[in-house]
């Protein structure tokens, strides 16, 4: 049985557009975000992402789980980058100290110390803006893209029929396999398999993961026979494919595509002229004695 993403028809900004137009805009947005570490430019992307989120019509209740998972993950890794400074060293060479907090205790002769610098703090802010912008826009896709339009959307974006259909199936299978993994994990737990205590040497650990990975994979392959039969019975791949629903660009879709292209072109131009690299406000540097 296929499990689906939590899509439903909503009166929302994203769903007002043709899904192809939105995917083109999303691709331009994504590529544009990757060009910048400057929080002033990233703020524009973050604002677009926030606007898309707030007008998406997706309730907090619906997207709470993925947001908490991904948000927590992003915050933890950004915080670790802030603590260690690792990750930002490619963006800045010199650090301006704001404060150095030393713990009042020692661990085996080592005193834990937190070094807060202007660069580390701003890098953390930039990283949060960058990654959250991408995450917000990505999380919204399964909630706002009609599953029955996956295939025709990818076909409309220029993919050949078979690749478009494979992409369509991939998106449909992901939640199903996630559910299958959960079921397999529960079944193995019921048999006394202790997932939380995977221990031993590396080879032993790898071997212990077999009872999870093998059943899910083989079950998926066995299940594929029904899908293959159904597709063969409908003469899949014999001639050019037609789709039950057709997509037609409206004026607003063309405007959105143009906006995406302008966003990407502007990002590229700024990059070409040397803008968009890591930035910290001069005033803060002066405050820190720089």
């Amino acid at each position, binding site marked *: 049985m296929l499990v689906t993403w939590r899509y439903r028809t909503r009166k929302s900004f994203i769903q007002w557009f043709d899904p192809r137009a939105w995917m083109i805009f999303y691709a331009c947005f*994504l*590529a544009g*975000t*990757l*060009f910048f570490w400057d929080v002033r430019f990233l703020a524009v992307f973050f604002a677009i992402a926030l606007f898309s989120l707030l007008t998406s019509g997706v309730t907090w209740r619906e997207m709470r789980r993925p947001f908490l998972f991904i948000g927590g*993950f*992003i915050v*933890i*890794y950004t915080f*670790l980058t802030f*603590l*260690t400074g*690792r*990750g930002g060293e*490619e*963006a800045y060479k010199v650090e301006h100290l704001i404060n150095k907090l030393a713990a009042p205790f020692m661990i085996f002769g080592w005193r834990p110390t937190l070094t807060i610098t202007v660069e580390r703090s701003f890098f953390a802010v930039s990283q949060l803006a*960058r990654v959250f912008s*991408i*995450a917000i826009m*990505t*999380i919204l896709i399964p909630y706002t893209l009609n599953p029955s339009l996956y295939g025709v959307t990818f076909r409309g974006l220029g993919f050949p029929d*078979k690749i478009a259909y*494979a*992409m369509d*199936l*991939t998106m449909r*299978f*992901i939640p*199903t*396999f*996630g559910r299958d*993994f959960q079921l397999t*994990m529960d079944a193995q737990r019921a048999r006394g398999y202790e997932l939380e205590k995977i221990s031993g040497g*590396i*080879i032993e*650990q*790898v*071997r212990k*993961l*077999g009872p999870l*990975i*093998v059943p899910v994979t*083989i079950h*998926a*392959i*066995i299940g*594929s*026979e029904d*899908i*293959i039969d159904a*597709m*063969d019975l409908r003469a*899949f*791949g014999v001639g050019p494919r037609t789709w039950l629903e057709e997509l037609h660009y409206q004026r607003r879709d063309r405007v959105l595509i143009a906006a995406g292209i302008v966003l990407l072109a502007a990002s590229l131009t700024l*990059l*070409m*002229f*040397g803008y*968009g*690299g890591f930035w910290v406000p001069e005033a803060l540097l002066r405050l820190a004695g720089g």
Partner: protein
Amino acid sequence: MKNKLVGVIIALVVILAIFLLLVYIGGNVMGVERLMTGENPMLRFAFVIVGLLIALGVYYGTKDSPAWEVGTRQVVWMAIGAALYAVFSWLFNGTVFFVPSISQVALRPAIAIPVFFGYAFGPIVGFFSGAVGNMFGDALTGFGLYPQWSIANGLIGFIAGLPLLFKDRKKSLDSVLGAGGVLTLIALVIYFINRTLPNMMFFDVPNNVFGDAPISIFAGISLLVGFALVLIVRFAFGKDLDLAASVTWGMLGNILGIGFAALSDIWINGYSLPSAIVGEFLPAAGPNLIFIAILVPLLVVAYRAVQKQSGR
């Protein structure tokens, strides 16, 4: 079809040329720092095209082989492989089900999926499973996209599926094993000369170590451990050609695919060759190879049982 393919190749070459021209004009002529190698986001996309051209080049040279046929079965297997790879990557990346790292070796069991799908169902299925699965996996974790790494994962599955191009699979095995051995040896020599370099793939969350620690001896020699396991599978199960070939070709795919991504960072992130090999290639390719050597034979045996049962 031929004209279409040539068209695609020409389009990719033109886009690649435009990228390189932008980098040359912006970085070298205009002196824009962000367009020079070192921190160059545009080169990520250039390496995507390089990876695609490699795959298309192999296809073009052997396009008459039935290994390239894409029918209904292949379309469904592509989707299953990509979805499984995405789900496993997401689950095992620590977001849901945390697999602890051992002596700086982070475990990525999902890598067995593109290798198995490539070997069992052909290079196109392997490429799609690796590339699209990695892309969706990255999207699910919400940490953005690393296109050259997606293509590298695609190449792993692609190369694992190449034995379908050979009529005599056994003959090709020893050459592949030899090539893998030589590449492992080169990587190890670079490691032993540069043993103090940091392991850039290592995230030790409990101890707040974020890629700073010098590479551990185990992470450094993990590729050798993996290669030893491949040798064991190759010779202990030498009569079972499927087991030996899946693991041996998977090894080559893993070394070349991860090698492609790690070497691309010499230009994209400005790493030195030793940093790319010791800091990125060894900590990623070594553990991958251990997983390939153990999990792929399990999948091959299980799939064979299914084939026997279903008669397909």
